[in-house]
């Protein structure tokens, strides 16, 4: 099974690689582009990245396994990251997490069977004055309550 990328992204990657003094330095940006298009980094994608950047495939795997936001398995259409650090905890993040777990029928760390939502309990998102806060894909939300969370989910396309 050959791995192929959209023409636009293939071009973006080409330009990107040129901007760094070493091909290896383009690894994280390239992985981000791949993950945005495919939803996760498959073994075939790893091989492709390794070949494109002249890296041993093992290195790609080493990097993938270190960073928590790089996924080796598909995630839901909406990745919900709820902060569980101090300020958000003090504002009730545990209730939010429990509420989402029960609403979505999954535990934090899991993806719903229909592939729509992934729920993650994460560390500080850097939005502490809007605690309790969460992110859905690239969007910040906070402060949230159980009600506002329900409304946000409902309003997702």
């Amino acid at each position: 099974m050959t791995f192929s990328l959209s023409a636009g992204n293939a071009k973006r990657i080409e330009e990107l690689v040129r901007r760094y003094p070493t091909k290896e330095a383009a690894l994280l940006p390239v992985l981000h582009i791949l993950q945005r298009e495919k939803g996760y980094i498959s073994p075939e994608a790893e091989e492709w990245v390794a070949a494109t950047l002249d890296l041993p495939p093992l290195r790609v795997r080493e990097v993938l396994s270190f960073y928590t936001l790089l996924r080796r398995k598909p995630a839901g259409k909406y990745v919900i990251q709820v902060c569980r650090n101090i300020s958000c905890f003090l504002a009730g993040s545990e209730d939010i997490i429990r509420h989402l777990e029960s609403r979505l029928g999954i535990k934090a760390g899991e993806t719903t069977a229909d592939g729509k939502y992934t729920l993650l309990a994460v560390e500080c998102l850097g939005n502490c004055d809007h605690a309790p806060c969460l992110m859905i894909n690239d969007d910040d939300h906070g402060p949230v309550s159980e009600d506002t969370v329900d409304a946000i989910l409902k309003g997702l396309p």
Partner: protein
Amino acid sequence: MISIQVDGRALQVPPGTTVLKAAEQMGIVIPRFCYHPAFEPEGSCRMCLVEIEGLPKLDLACSTVVREGMKIWTSTPKVIEARKDVLAFLLADHPLDCPICDKAGECFLQDYYDKHGRYASRFSEVKEKKRKKIPIGKGLLLDRERCVLCTRCVRFLRRVTGTGELGVFERGVKAEIGIGEGMAIRNNYSGNLVDICPVGAITDGDFRFKTRAWFLEKGRTVCPRCSRGCNIVIHAVRGYPLPGRQRRIYRIVPAENPEVNGYWICDFGRYGYHDIEDNRLTTIVLRTDGRPEEKTSDWKDVITGLAADIKKTVENGRSSRMAVVLNGYLTNEELAACRRIFVDTLGLRNIFFADPKPGEADGILLTADRAPNGRGAAALGFSPTLPEPESPPGSTDLLIVFGLHLLEHLPAEKAAAWFKQAGKTYLLAATSSVLDRAADVVLPTALPAEKKGSYTNIAGLTQSFECAVPAPRGSLPEAEILARLAAELGVELG
């Protein structure tokens, strides 16, 4: 030179010396896991922390470079405490595998706990569980629970072999060593991984569960499997496991020699100890026409007989009727004796060499030339010519063959036939082969590990070695055979 103090004693060292190396000069071994002299300091195990007067925190001995007037303290209460802490951290998740772990007896964790630990464990949580028997290639097994993440193995494969089969995956306490997807270690230096692993995380299938490190006796010698002359140590046990058995060799490890092999040996040399063990000849075999085969251990008669055969053959200028086949496994001393006897005294011209066929050099240690003393032979004036299968010219009345490497150049039947063609044949060999059946006299010899002597390697360096393991009873080194022969022939070996 820089003047420093280590534990109150003055010392002078060249600029650029690290604290660890300076302490070593004083005979102080600072404990370490990740540091290995072959690599740049890594600084991750934190075991080598020492106290440097005037500095607020403990510093790494492996990477701190000495400065003029530096006062280093290697055993203050702070240092002792820090070492206990590192051990406590490493042992927290370490499995209780000592009873079944091959590394027991030579394990850094055990040794350091004994010397620097001796604290009461306070760990009462659930240990991290990891996979324990991961094949990584060439019979090596990785045990992630035992691993202390010193990363020596990863660095070895990246910097020495350049093959990079191992990497570090995941993060934090879940960090683990792993083999690349679909990869296996196949390079010629895999055995070194077992040596450099400070604990039993990487173990060798060749050695697994066979013995215990504390039973092993060590003998240093030079590896004879190519012309590099790597320094090795043979680990054997006398009389174990079976009493009456003279010895058994369990493994070969490198001996450090910066001029020759650095810290490593190749797998071809390392696992070559099976040659030393298997199919050894231990009795003299005599075959005379018409008489049944005779086995004896009486060297005196045989050597007297050989001397007589030699005298008979070469008298009246018939030295062309005698041929000798030597090899590059003979030590310089043995080859010198051959020269004195066969060239200087007997004036033989039919002197040939049968050596192992050249192989592929691996670009690191293993050379294409697979004989250990080709240079030594050349230095003594020999030139390695193979005997022609149809020769010797004319007929040979007396053929003396040292070693079995003819078999690498001739098909077995041809070699045997050649033996049969000649008048009387003497075979000096260590292991049995088809040629035993073909020769008239078979004299069991010792292998290089069982001899003392010297080899000259590919770089022209002559290295002397002592006998590393006892030879099987009944066999003799060629040096001894030649000395006795010389005595019978009245030749002064000098």
